């Protein structure tokens, strides 16, 4: 694989995320809370997150007062959910300076803290997330019952309130038509399989977010151990085996797809978002399989991972510094991709 920074299992695992859902006792959950109660939760959480000692300084964003463009940037960076961006209740988010951690206030639950890490680093993400949870939890009364554990608005989060997820790149399993089997296996194992932007998003580019659905009856350590040491490594091995099959039996076809993607990305003057995601996905596969070494040894996984973010509409707008039409965005996207890939 070509150079750049390395993260565990980065060929297949783009990122890991740990998320913990908590609610304040005595206050209705967000779906039943009135404006005053939402305001109270927000003020309390904001004060704590900006003042209790945490691993890093947090920056507060009042989502009601932020622009739709700012919210879109946060969604594209996976720091808030689409639901949180589009909601109409009093809400905000605290974002860690390194942009690895964020705490959503008044999303579906009062407090949802999450930590992102590149590659497969769930244990590290969990540890950091738990430290935020403990720092906040020693100052507020969380809604908790001996039988249920941590109470949540949705029955699927009660108990530990912990959700682990990994963003996987599974192009070979798609090409070998095994992705249906992956979905079925995931279902049998009580895992959710979603698209690049989580709930409600599609799997353009063969990016799949896999997460645990069971939060009750198992301890945090059991959930983490199974997810990090069995489930995700199992899926990684499955994808790697599919890549090997393609290399052994269909190398020419695979190279053709990778180099066509390279050619299109390196020459296109207009690119749609979907199209760029699909092409970058093929290119990413080619980089992982060392196919592009001779043609373009400067292309790294870091470059492609960055491009997957920079081609998103909010980031393109940020790049040019003003609002642009969808047609203009296609042009800007193509120029940006060429510049970063081949220095054009």
């Amino acid at each position, binding site marked *: 694989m070509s150079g750049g920074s390395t993260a565990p299992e980065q060929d297949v695992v783009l990122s890991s995320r740990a998320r913990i859902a908590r*609610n304040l*006792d*005595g*206050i*209705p*959950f967000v*779906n*039943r809370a009135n404006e005053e109660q939402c305001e109270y939760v927000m003020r309390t959480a904001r004060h704590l997150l900006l003042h209790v000692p945490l691993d890093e300084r947090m920056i507060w964003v009042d989502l009601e007062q932020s622009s739709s463009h700012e919210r879109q940037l946060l969604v594209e960076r996976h720091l808030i959910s689409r639901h949180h961006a589009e909601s109409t209740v009093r809400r905000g988010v605290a974002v860690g300076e390194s942009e690895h951690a964020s705490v959503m206030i008044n999303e*579906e639950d009062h407090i949802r803290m999450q930590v992102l890490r590149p590659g497969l680093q769930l244990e590290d993400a969990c540890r950091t997330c738990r430290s935020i*949870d*403990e720092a906040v*939890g*020693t100052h507020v009364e*969380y*809604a*908790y*019952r*001996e*039988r*249920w*554990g*941590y*109470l*949540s*608005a*949705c*029955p*699927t989060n*009660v*108990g*530990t309130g*912990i959700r682990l997820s990994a963003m996987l790149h599974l192009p070979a399993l798609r090409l070998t038509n095994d992705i249906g089997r992956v979905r079925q296996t995931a279902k049998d194992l*009580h895992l959710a399989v979603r698209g690049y932007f989580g709930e409600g998003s599609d799997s353009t580019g063969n990016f799949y977010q896999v997460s645990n*659905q*069971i*939060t*009750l*009856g*198992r*301890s*945090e350590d059991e959930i983490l151990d199974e997810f990090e040491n069995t489930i995700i490594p199992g899926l990684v091995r499955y994808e790697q085996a599919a890549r090997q099959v393609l290399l052994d039996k269909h190398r020419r076809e695979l190279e053709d797809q990778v180099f066509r993607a390279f050619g299109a990305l390196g020459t296109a003057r207009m690119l749609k978002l979907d199209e760029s995601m699909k092409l970058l996905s093929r290119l990413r596969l080619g980089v992982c399989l060392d196919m592009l070494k001779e043609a373009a040894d400067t292309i790294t996984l870091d470059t492609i991972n960055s491009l997957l973010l920079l081609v998103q509409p909010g980031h393109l707008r940020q790049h040019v510094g003003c609002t642009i039409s969808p047609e203009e965005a296609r042009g800007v996207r193509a120029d940006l991709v060429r510049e970063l890939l081949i220095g054009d």
Partner: protein
Amino acid sequence: MKCDICDKPAVVHEVTIANGVKKEVHLCLDHARDAGVAMPGQQPINKLLSKFSVAGKPTVVAPRCEQCGTSFAQIRQNSLIGCPACYDTFEEPLGRFIERAQAGATHHVGRGLPQEEGKSRQQREERQLMRALEAALSREQYERAAEIRDQINQLSDRPSEESQEPSSEGDEA
């Protein structure tokens, strides 16, 4: 008595008095039906049932959470629980609902509250029950309060974990 029209036995007997004149009609089943007399056993079932329902209007009102006003039907419909107190109000049906969503799991086995770390399970249970008792009393649910009080008493009668185990750290393992 025979039917006024044929020789079959009369099953419908109608006596009317209009303007001081008494009029008696006796009819068999067939002729009563022809005459459009409503037969008690032949009313459509929906009419009979509607009479019953009018007579006994439903008196059972779906219970709602006293803290947030959410009914269990709303929870089931939206898959969203209203507030922490809903977990106490709808403990049984919600338990079944959660069990389905959580692949059969019924109890939490993970970490406890940060401020409760180090306390024994018995202490935590007692604290939970005390809070439930306060909630029941504030809602004037005296039967529920009595049940909780009994549970607290049972807990107090139980030998403490400290006397059975060298330490309570195993609770969180």
